[in-house]
C-alpha cells in the first residue's frame, strides 16, 4: 500500500472502492471467480522463491521444505474450489407445495457483497485453522503464509464477493510481501490486502461490510461482533478453546501416545488452535500413559529437545513469558514430570508434561497454546466427561478408545466444534467437514463448500403463474372461502381443485 497512515479516511476510501467494484458486477461471473482462484494458485507457485527470500537467517533447510509443504496445502484449497465452483454456483430447484400450486421454487446463492477477513491481531498466531495442521510443525516466518488464512479468501472469492484481507501482523516480512505480490496476480480492484495491527483493524471495523470473517481470540472476537452489530453485519468467528483429550485404558497405547504427541508438539509446538490442550484419564491408567508419552517424546525429539531441529520455537517473547509464567506458578511447578526446560534467547520451550495440575490455576483456565501438556486424572472415566462439560465448549475434543460404547457416548454428549476419535488434528484436513467452533469457540464454519456458503446469501426465488387464482385468499371472508383456505393450507388436493376452478365465485 502507499505510504501514510491507514486511518479512518483511508479505510472509508477502501470500502468505497471495493463497493464500487462489487456493484459493477464484475465479481459475479464464473469466469472472473475462476480467474482469481487460478491467479492465487499461480502466485503461490511462481513466487515461492521470493517468499522464501523473506525468511529469517536462522532457517535450516528442513524448515524451507516445510514451507513448500505449506504452500501445497494452500494450492490444494484453490484446486478444490476450482473443481467444485460450477456446482456450488448452481441454483437448487426445490419442490414447491400444493398450497402454492402452480409454482416453481429455486434457491440461488449470491454474494453478500464486500467481505472483511481478519487474522488475529492481539493473539497473532491464533489462526492456524484452515487446511490442516502442519505435520512438519516448524515455526518460521514462512509458515506465516498459512496464517494468511487463504481458505476464507478462497471461499469469499468463489462466492463472488470483493474482499479486504487484513493478515496477521506477527510476520511483517512475509505479510508485506504478500500485500505487494497478491495484487499483481488478481483483480486488485476487488481483492485488497491491508497490513497493520490494532489501529488499522479498528478503522476497518468501523466501516460497513456485508460480512466479517475473523480468526483469533475470544476477546477480540467480541470486539469484532460488537462492531459488526452497528451495521447488522453477519460474522463468522473462528476462535479457540482448551481442546481436551480423553484417554481410555482400552487403547493401543503406543499409537495413542504418538498421535497425541504429533498433534501437540508436531503442530508448531502446541501453537495451534486445535492442538490437544490437556489430557484427561483415569488414575489407574495415568502411569501407563505418561510412560508411553515419555518414550515417544524421547524418540521424537531426543534427550536434548531444545537442540532438536524438529521442534518449533515460541512465536515471540510476549508468548514466551506467558508460557514460562504458567510454569512458574507455585502450584504448577511441582507438577512437572517431564521436560520443563527452556531457552529464553532462542525462545524455545521443551515439550513438558505435568501431572494433576490444580484445576483453579491459570494453566487450567486459559488456552495454553504452547508445548505444555497437563494430564488431569480422575477415579472414573465418566468424571473426565463431566470435567469437559463443566468447561466452555472447545474447538476440538479428542477421545482415544477401542470401546464403541464409550465412543458413542462421547460423540453424543460432548459438544465441541469438531470431534476426532483415536487421532488428533486430521479431521481439519477434510474439505467435506465443516470447520468451526460452537459456544465460546466460535460462530459459523468454513472449509470446502462451507467456505462458499459462509460468504453467500441463499436467495429464495419463487415463480407463480396467473393460473390457479384462489379467491379464498381475499376478503370478504365467507364461510366457504374459509373452508377452502383451510384445505389449501393443509395441502388438500380437493381444496386445490376447487380453488383452481375458481370456487367459490366472488
Amino acid at each position: 500500500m502507499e505510504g501514510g497512515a491507514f486511518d479512518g479516511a483511508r479505510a472509508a476510501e477502501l470500502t468505497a472502492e471495493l463497493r464500487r467494484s462489487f456493484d459493477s458486477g464484475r465479481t459475479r461471473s464464473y469466469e472472473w471467480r475462476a480467474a482469481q482462484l487460478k491467479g492465487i494458485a499461480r502466485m503461490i507457485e511462481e513466487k515461492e522463491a521470493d517468499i522464501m527470500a523473506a525468511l529469517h537467517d536462522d532457517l535450516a533447510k528442513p524448515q524451507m521444505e516445510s514451507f513448500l509443504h505449506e504452500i501445497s496445502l494452500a494450492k490444494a484449497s484453490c484446486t478444490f474450489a476450482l473443481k467444485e465452483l460450477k456446482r456450488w454456483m448452481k441454483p437448487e430447484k426445490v419442490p414447491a407445495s400444493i398450497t402454492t400450486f402452480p409454482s416453481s421454487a429455486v434457491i440461488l446463492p449470491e454474494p453478500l457483497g464486500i467481505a472483511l477477513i481478519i487474522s488475529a491481531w492481539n493473539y497473532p498466531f491464533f489462526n492456524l485453522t484452515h487446511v490442516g495442521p502442519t505435520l512438519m510443525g516448524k515455526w518460521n516466518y514462512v509458515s506465516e503464509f498459512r496464517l494468511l488464512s487463504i481458505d476464507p479468501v478462497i471461499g469469499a472469492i468463489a462466492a463472488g464477493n470483493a474482499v479486504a484481507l487484513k493478515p496477521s501482523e506477527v510476520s511483517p516480512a512475509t505479510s508485506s510481501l504478500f500485500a505487494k505480490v497478491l495484487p499483481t496476480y488478481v483483480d486488485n480492484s476487488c481483492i485488497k490486502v491491508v497490513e497493520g495491527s490494532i489501529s488499522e483493524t479498528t478503522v476497518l471495523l468501523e466501516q460497513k461490510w456485508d460480512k466479517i470473517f475473523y480468526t483469533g481470540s475470544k476477546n477480540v472476537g467480541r470486539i469484532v461482533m460488537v462492531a459488526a452489530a452497528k451495521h447488522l453485519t453477519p460474522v463468522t468467528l473462528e476462535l479457540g478453546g482448551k481442546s481436551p483429550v480423553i484417554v481410555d485404558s482400552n487403547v493401543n497405547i503406543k499409537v495413542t501416545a504418538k498421535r497425541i504427541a504429533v498433534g501437540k508438539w508436531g503442530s508448531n509446538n502446541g501453537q495451534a488452535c486445535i492442538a490437544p490442550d490437556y489430557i484427561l484419564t483415569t488414575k489407574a491408567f495415568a502411569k501407563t500413559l505418561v510412560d508411553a508419552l515419555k518414550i515417544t517424546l524421547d524418540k521424537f525429539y531426543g534427550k536434548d529437545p531444545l537442540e532438536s531441529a524438529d521442534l518449533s520455537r515460541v512465536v515471540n517473547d510476549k508468548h514466551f513469558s506467558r508460557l514460562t509464567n504458567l510454569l512458574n506458578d507455585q502450584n504448577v511447578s511441582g507438577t512437572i514430570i517431564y521436560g520443563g526446560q527452556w531457552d529464553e534467547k532462542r525462545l524455545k520451550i521443551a515439550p513438558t508434561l505435568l501431572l494433576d495440575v490444580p484445576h483453579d490455576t491459570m494453566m487450567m483456565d486459559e488456552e495454553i497454546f504452547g508445548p505444555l501438556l497437563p494430564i488431569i486424572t480422575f477415579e472414573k472415566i465418566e468424571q473426565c466427561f463431566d470435567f469437559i462439560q463443566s468447561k466452555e465448549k472447545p474447538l476440538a475434543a479428542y477421545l482415544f478408545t477401542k470401546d464403541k460404547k464409550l465412543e458413542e457416548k462421547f460423540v453424543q454428549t460432548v459438544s465441541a466444534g469438531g470431534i476426532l476419535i483415536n487421532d488428533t488434528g486430521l479431521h481439519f484436513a477434510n474439505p467435506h467437514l465443516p470447520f468451526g467452533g460452537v459456544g465460546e469457540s466460535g460462530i459459523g464454519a468454513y472449509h470446502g463448500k462451507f467456505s462458499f456458503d459462509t460468504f453467500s446469501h441463499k436467495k429464495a426465488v419463487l415463480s407463480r403463474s396467473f393460473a390457479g387464482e384462489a379467491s379464498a385468499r381475499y376478503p370478504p371472508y365467507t364461510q366457504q372461502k374459509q373452508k377452502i383456505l383451510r384445505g389449501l393450507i393443509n395441502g388438500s388436493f380437493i381444496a386445490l381443485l376447487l380453488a383452481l376452478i375458481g370456487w367459490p365465485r366472488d
Partner: protein
Amino acid sequence: MEGELKEVREAYESGKTRSLSWRLSQLKALLRLLYDKEDDIFKALEQDLGKHRAEAYRDEVGLLIKSVNYAIGNLRKWMTPNKVSVPLVAFPSRADIVPEPLGVVLIFSSWNFPIGLSLEPLIGAISAGNAIIIKPSELAPESAEFLARSVSKYLDDKLVKVITGGPDAGQKLLDHKWDKIFFTGSPRVGRIVMAAAAKHLTPVSLELGGKCPAIIDSLTNARDRKIAVRRIIGGKWVACSGQACIGVDYILVEEKFAPILIDMLKATIEKFYPAFDTLSKIINKHHFQRLASLIKDPSVADTIVHGGSMDSDKLFIEPTILLDPPLDAEIMTEEIFGPLLPVITVKKIEDSIDFIRTRPKPLAIYAFTQDEKLKNRLVSETSSGSLTFNDTMLQFAIDTLPFGGVGASGFGQYHGKFSFDMFSHKKSVMRRSFLLEYSFRYPPWDGWKLPFMRSVFHFDYVSLLLRLLGLKR
C-alpha cells in the same frame, strides 16, 4: 426470572431434550394446542390487532399447523448424522456431520403476527433439541398472555417457557448468556440484541424488515392484470393492514400505466372492503401517530389519490394510495409498516432495477411480469431475502424455501429444515482406528518423509501407493 432461567438450564443439562421421542412429543403437543385453542388464538388476535379469523388462520394458525406436521414428518431424517467422504489417505476412517442442539435459546417475537412469529421458530428450536425461552412482544398483550398460559400447559414447562414483559424484561434477558438468540423485529432493536449477544459470543439470527417493492410491468392479458392487482392488495392491506415485514411497501410502475393501476386498485379495494370490518387495526397509538405523520406534510399529503381518512380512537387508517410522493420524504425512506401505499412511477420498467439497487436490501422483492429478460435481470442484479414473481407473500408458506433477510433486512434463515439447522450445531466427527500407522507422520523428520507428505497432500494416490509399497509399518 432468575429462578426460571436456572430451571431451564438445569433441565436442558439433564439431557431430556436430546431424544427423538421428547422432541416429537413436544411437537405433537404443540399441534394439539393449535387445534384445541384455535378460538382462543382468534380471540387474542382480534383483541390485539382486530385481525379477522380468516386471516388469523391463513397467516398464523394454519401455517403453524403445516409447519409442525412438516417437522414431525421429517425430524428423524434431520437428526440423522450426515456421512461425508474421507480422503483415501485417512483410511480406515469414517466422517460424519452430527447435528446437536445449541442449548438454551431465546426467541424474541414481533407484535404483528405474535402467535406465528413466536411458535414458528419454536418448532425449529424444539426439533433441534433445545430448551427455549420465548419473549413475546408486549405490544400484543393478549397474544402474549395466551402464549404464557397455554404453552406451559401443553408443552414441557421446565424446558419451554414464555416470559412476558416490556423492554425491561427484554433487557434483563439479554444480560444473561444464551446459546442462541432469534430476533424478529426492527433494525434498531436488532442492533441492540446483536451487541448484547456479542458479550457472550452468542450466535444470533435477525429477522428484520425493509421496504419491500412490488414492480408491476405491463401485462397484456386483462385477466392477468386483474389477478395481479388482487395479489398486490393481498400483499398489502389483506396482510395485517400493511403491518407485515414481507408486505408490499411500495409499487414501481411505468408512468403510463399508473392511472390504470390506481383505478384497478381502487375498484378492487372497494370490492374486498365494502365495509372495513375485516381490515386489521393499527397496533397502537404510537404507530398510528407515526403513520399519520408520514402523510401530514403537504408535499406528501398532496400526492394522496385514494383514502387518507383516519380514526385515532378506532386505530383505523383507510387503505391509502399515493402517487409519486417525494422520494426524500420519510414515507419513502423508512419502512412504512401500515396501510399507506406509494406508487412510484418510472419511465421504463427497467429503471426499477436501479431504484431498488440503490436502496437497502429488502426482505422481499415482488415483480409482476411476463418478460423473461426483466426477470433474469432482477434475479441477477438485485439482492433481497427472497424474490417472488407474479404473486406476494406466498414464499412464506413454502417449507422448502429458506426464509430470512440479507443486508439491512437481517441474516439467518428458517422455515422447514432451515429452522432445524438454524438452531443446531453441525458437529464434525471423524473416527479412526488404530490400524494402519504411517510412520512418516512423526518426527524425527528424516529426508524421505517430506516427499511422502507431499504426495499425501496432493492427494496423489499413485505415488503414495508406490511409496507405501516400499514402507515399513
